[in-house]
């Protein structure tokens, strides 16, 4: 497969992704799946500043579902990013991400969110999305950087409800 990382991170393209993960995974392109950003060239230009010569695609969630098969089959190595769990869950619906791993890399404070890890705060909707992904065959773990400890969804859930 050529999607080398699926990541949920509200900051999308930023230092941890480009430096931390990018230097290890050597992506040929970043795919940002976000309905709002895909309609805003000004914001797209901002995010492109961070990746040098690497290609960046901005697509809606529905477009991403259509292209996912091609991206996975392509020779180009992609890092796919969403800013929230709902968008990643939408991608996973119907088993589209069956067998894939999704990395939770950064969700901070927000309405109803509780701290699970320093970089990960979840609310009930987030947890439902993650459980739905797991039921659709996705391996969900949290890890902000490649050399950090990987935390399973089961451990995250226990932390949240203890």
């Amino acid at each position, binding site marked *: 497969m050529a999607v080398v990382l699926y990541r949920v991170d*509200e*900051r999308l*393209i*930023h*230092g941890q992704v*480009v430096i931390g993960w990018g230097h290890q995974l050597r992506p040929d392109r970043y795919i940002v799946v976000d309905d709002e950003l895909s309609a805003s060239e*000004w914001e797209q230009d*901002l*995010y492109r*500043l*961070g*990746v040098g010569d690497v290609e960046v695609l901005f697509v809606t969630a529905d477009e991403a579902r259509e292209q996912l098969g091609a991206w996975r089959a392509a020779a180009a190595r992609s890092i796919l990013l969403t800013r929230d769990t709902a968008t990643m869950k939408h991608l996973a619906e119907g088993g589209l991400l069956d067998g894939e791993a999704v990395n939770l890399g*950064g*969700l*901070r*404070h*927000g309405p109803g969110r509780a701290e699970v890890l*320093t970089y990960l705060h979840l609310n009930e909707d987030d947890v439902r999305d993650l459980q739905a992904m797991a039921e659709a065959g996705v391996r969900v773990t949290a890890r902000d950087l490649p050399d950090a400890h990987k935390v399973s969804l089961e451990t995250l859930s226990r932390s949240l409800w203890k």
Partner: protein
Amino acid sequence: MSDGAVVRGVVIGHGDMPRGLVDAVRHIAGKAADDLVPVSNEGKGPAQLAAELNEAAGLGTVLVFTDLRAGSCGIAAAYACRDLERRAVICGVNLPMLLDFVFHRDLPLPELVDRLVETGREAIVAAPIAGS
């Protein structure tokens, strides 16, 4: 400045870097650093970071210094200054630039920006390597 006001500064960056830079300016320049406000991205999502930056920037003329051009801090700065003539952003902040800033805050914003970019660039030099 056209209205006689001086420019305030906000330093936004990763981890403890903003506070460290402002602290360094204070150690060197004293109270001249009082109108330089540090904002760290540590533990903050985009919305919270943008809100904190806007609060630090206030209503007057402001120059926002960021560490990286891209990433969460650069993007927050770009949003905060978008379409506002009284705000500007300089990316790649360094200490010499900030020291020059605190003593020239009465310059018009565009002139100040040009000056500080030049100051910051000129400050980056390689010391001779021993034996070479």
